[in-house]
């Protein structure tokens, strides 16, 4: 049985369950869309959550990542991650409450998993999607090392990455708006 007819079957069942047609405020299931098969899902690429969900196998250390970073990242982000010309990736610790806050992976980001997810999908900026999973782990390990968050020989993998304590993990609060006392003026 094809996946299409499988889904159509489910839709029919649901339609039957819903009875005569429209339920208040609800439209009937259309049965459109094709059922995705598990093997196909993997080809769509990783989406990584803060608990490590979605992280692939593979591992690397910062020591292994240095060469890759110097070759593939440093031209835009600087050898130490602080020189630019593009986004600063390291430094800025304890700068957030000052006049010149420097938001970097080390000073600002609440989760290390974000780094894997983002580098995997978006970097290098001019060659996105060109790194293997192991290379992403290597680049991530090195950026974490530049921020003093791992040692050179610490293995970074699906197990260790979600457990890295990010310094600003507790630095985020929920939206408290409306929070501004609007300047009151006489109403017309």
């Amino acid at each position, binding site marked *: 049985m094809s996946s299409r007819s499988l889904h159509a079957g489910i839709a029919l069942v649901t339609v039957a369950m819903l009875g005569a047609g429209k339920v208040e405020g*609800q439209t009937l299931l259309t049965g459109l869309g094709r059922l*995705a098969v598990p093997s196909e899902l993997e080809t769509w690429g990783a989406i990584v959550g803060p608990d490590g969900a979605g992280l692939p196998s593979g591992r690397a250390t910062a020591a292994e990542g240095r060469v890759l970073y110097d070759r593939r990242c440093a031209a835009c982000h600087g050898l130490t991650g602080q020189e630019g010309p593009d986004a600063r990736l390291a430094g800025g610790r304890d700068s957030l409450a000052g006049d010149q*806050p420097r938001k970097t992976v080390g000073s*600002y980001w609440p989760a290390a998993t974000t780094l894997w997810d983002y580098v995997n999908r978006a970097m290098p900026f001019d060659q996105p999607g060109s790194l293997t999973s192991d290379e992403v782990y290597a680049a991530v390990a090195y950026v974490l090392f530049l921020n003093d968050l791992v040692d050179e020989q610490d293995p970074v993998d699906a197990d260790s990455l979600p457990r890295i304590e990010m310094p600003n993990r507790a630095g985020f609060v929920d*939206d408290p708006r409306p*929070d501004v*006392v609007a300047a009151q*003026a006489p109403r*017309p």
Partner: protein
Amino acid sequence: MTGDDARTKAGHGRRGFLKAATLGSAAAVLRPSTLLGQPRSGRSLGEGVGGYGDRSPFETTLRRVRGSRYAQAAGSLTPLQNLNGSITPSALHFERHHSGIPEIDPSEHRLLIDGLVDRPLVFSLAELQRMPAVTRTYFVECSGNGRVKWSPAEPDTDAQAAFGMTSCSEWTGVPVSALLREVGASAGASWVVAEGADACRMTRSVPLDKAMDDTLVAYGQNGEALRPAQGYPLRLLIPGWEGNICVKWLRRLRVVDQSYLTREETAKYTDLMPNGEARQYTFVMDAKSVITRPSGGQQLDEPGFYQISGLAWSGRGRVQRVEVTTDGGRSWAEAQLQDPVLPLAHTRFRFDWSWDGSETTLASRCIDETGDVQPSRAALIAARGTQSSYHNNAVQGWRIGRDGRVENVDV
């Protein structure tokens, strides 16, 4: 057409008056081509019909690119000061991309909905267009719109530079709620991660209740397909919320059990407070308005009547009232709102005014149906400091000089 041609044609013309004007000495003064009552365009055939229309060659207003090292990770701003009504022409809708505009063949594009669902489904565009659709008018505003207002006013900043990262369109698409019913979201589902098909595969976490409420997967914009810069062939449209979360070139919705802390909801689009804490998930765009005419960079020719005109909007609902001051904030009066006032859409306001030629400052403020009042810049900074980058909805002032020049000023 030269003057001689014009005269010859007019000489053979139908109207006695023109004929008379071309004879005798009057011709030297009243050349037919300059007679307003007889425009040059009336004396030769115009362009023929065509396929896709262009605007008049006399209309030259453009988006303005905001400087960046890469044109692919940059923004371009809508010329609000040159627009009428409340809809933004698609070609002038502001842009903000993080890795350029992808070229996508719609016949190859797919939307995958997976994660905590009973049935992960893949939809083609053709299938999505068979589903029950809705059409709604919504603004899309970058949360960085108004960012310049965290710094003291520069006189030369115009409405486009200060506010041009908001645009308003009529969007057509399928409610996400309908799509999630097709896949059957399972227990424990609380967020949806949306992913684009651009080079950074832009990703944001969307709370499930907002996705189920009024969020659209849109394929239509102002009567035609989405523009490539607006997500062709498919984008998320989350009414009233910051533009970045309305993921363009949408390719996947993954139903999950928590926010995925993507880069765009952690490193970016979070609002840093003076104590070093950052506000996260500041999705809603607050009540806001700006006078677009007269506005920065424009010139009043002479004292006399000018209708003040501008735009107001709020991510919390309908604009309830717009107040205008023409005396630098000493007194405020209610502007007229153009009907229909739609929720979560740009609303045009107008206010009749006569300029007496003296120096003064104009400003507007929006009050929405929830009672949210657009604050002064000082009140906003007192609450949030100057480093929060996003969500600046401070009142915008325009100073009219004695020479009629209009300049940006803090009020």
